[in-house]
């Protein structure tokens, strides 16, 4: 962590902005000091006059000199973030939250299931898992996107296909698309992993995660080996304000990564 005060941002400088899709950008920032984080954690990005937004860290944990966030333009703050130019400055608080369970993957198959922008918080985990292939079992990455044009990290994903099992599918496409089309759960195959030992990491819209969990449970994957990254309206990121309350939890402090065993009773409840 680069600051001892969780409420005080440090100033970061935009080094690069790369357009991923029509509405999604990857922002590379430089911070005054190396920015250490764990896969699955998030930062609060602050634009004076616009406000703060919680954004997952999408970079490589071994590259603490570049802080990477992939951001979809959906509101005032994110619109402000994507309007930044190289050399502009912004405030960063973080890193916050419970990370992906990288400490329990050794010797196990790992299945990563991402939907839409949900690949962004999983990218650091995929990079870290890819780097420790010798220590884990089979690595499989499954990704569902809205359309071929909405796929994040498209070029990098091709490289993943060469290194481990990586499959993608889209909900809609033109007739020229030769890839898979259909729901992401269709790509879950027990051929890729041992259901009795696999660690599953899932991030995407809750309805997608719900059906992914259902598919995994049907294959015999136990709830405490299924990990989810939850998204709620995070404001303080320190478990103080209560905006991100999720049952007994604050997503900013107790999450965003939960094991399914923790949140099973809350999952899919409309009012939570």
């Amino acid at each position, binding site marked *: 962590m680069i600051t001892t005060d969780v409420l005080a941002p440090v100033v970061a400088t935009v080094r690069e902005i790369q357009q991923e899709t029509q*509405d999604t950008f990857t922002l590379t920032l430089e911070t005054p000091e190396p920015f250490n984080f764990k896969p699955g954690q998030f930062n609060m990005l602050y634009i004076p006059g616009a406000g703060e*937004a919680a954004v997952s860290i999408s970079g490589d944990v071994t590259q603490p000199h570049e802080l990477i966030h992939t951001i*979809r*333009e*959906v*509101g005032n*703050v*994110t619109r402000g973030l994507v309007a930044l130019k190289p050399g502009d400055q912004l405030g960063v608080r973080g890193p916050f939250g419970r990370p992906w369970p990288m400490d329990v993957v050794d010797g196990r198959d790992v299945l990563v299931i991402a*939907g*839409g*922008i949900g690949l962004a918080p999983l990218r650091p985990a995929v990079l870290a898992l890819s780097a420790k292939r010798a220590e884990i079992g089979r690595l499989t990455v499954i990704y*569902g*996107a*809205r359309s071929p044009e*909405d796929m994040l990290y498209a070029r990098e994903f091709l490289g993943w296909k060469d290194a481990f099992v990586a499959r993608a*599918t889209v*909900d*809609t*496409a*033109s*007739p020229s*698309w*030769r*890839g*898979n*089309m*259909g*729901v992401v759960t*269709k790509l879950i195959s027990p051929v890729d992993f041992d259901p009795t030992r696999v660690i599953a990491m899932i991030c*995407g*819209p809750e*309805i*997608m995660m719900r*059906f992914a969990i259902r598919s995994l449970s049907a294959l015999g994957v136990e709830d405490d080996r299924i990990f989810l990254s939850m998204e709620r309206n995070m404001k303080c990121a320190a478990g103080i304000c209560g905006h991100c309350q999720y049952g007994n939890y604050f997503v900013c402090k107790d999450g965003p990564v939960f094991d399914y065993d923790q949140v099973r009773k809350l999952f899919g409840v409309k009012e939570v």
Partner: protein
Amino acid sequence: MMKHELHEILRQHDFFKDLPEDDLLVISGCAKMVMIKAGEVLAREGSDANNFYVVRMGKLRIEQQAPAMKPQPIQTIGCGDVAGWSWLFPPYRWSFDVIALEDSRLICLDGACLRGKCENNHSLGYRVVKKFADVLRQRLHAASLQAMDVYAPRED
């Protein structure tokens, strides 16, 4: 291909593998192996649905045609999947187009042959219809999720 070889292939295929041996023997009497090249059309909407296909290898795409529009891809299917349920329901006409995206190896099942066997043996018929009901359930579920556009941006 000999009938016992077809029987063995059916037994190992995801779609058939939990059926009783007697059923597999009967079904294999209506089956033959086919290969289709990438780009070939397996079925056209409205044409006679005399067969259905289970995929052993390759990839097929189910498409919907609409006047003055490009064909609308709906779903791709691959190894372990089945293409075609219209052989079960009068007037036995395909509901969608089916195109091969890759060179594919399929098992072609004669729908009229299997319908006749199901009529004569309702236990077999029940198990076959249950199989297809599950395919329909999964396709309906997938189509509804796709229609929900779950990956669309949500205002923060």
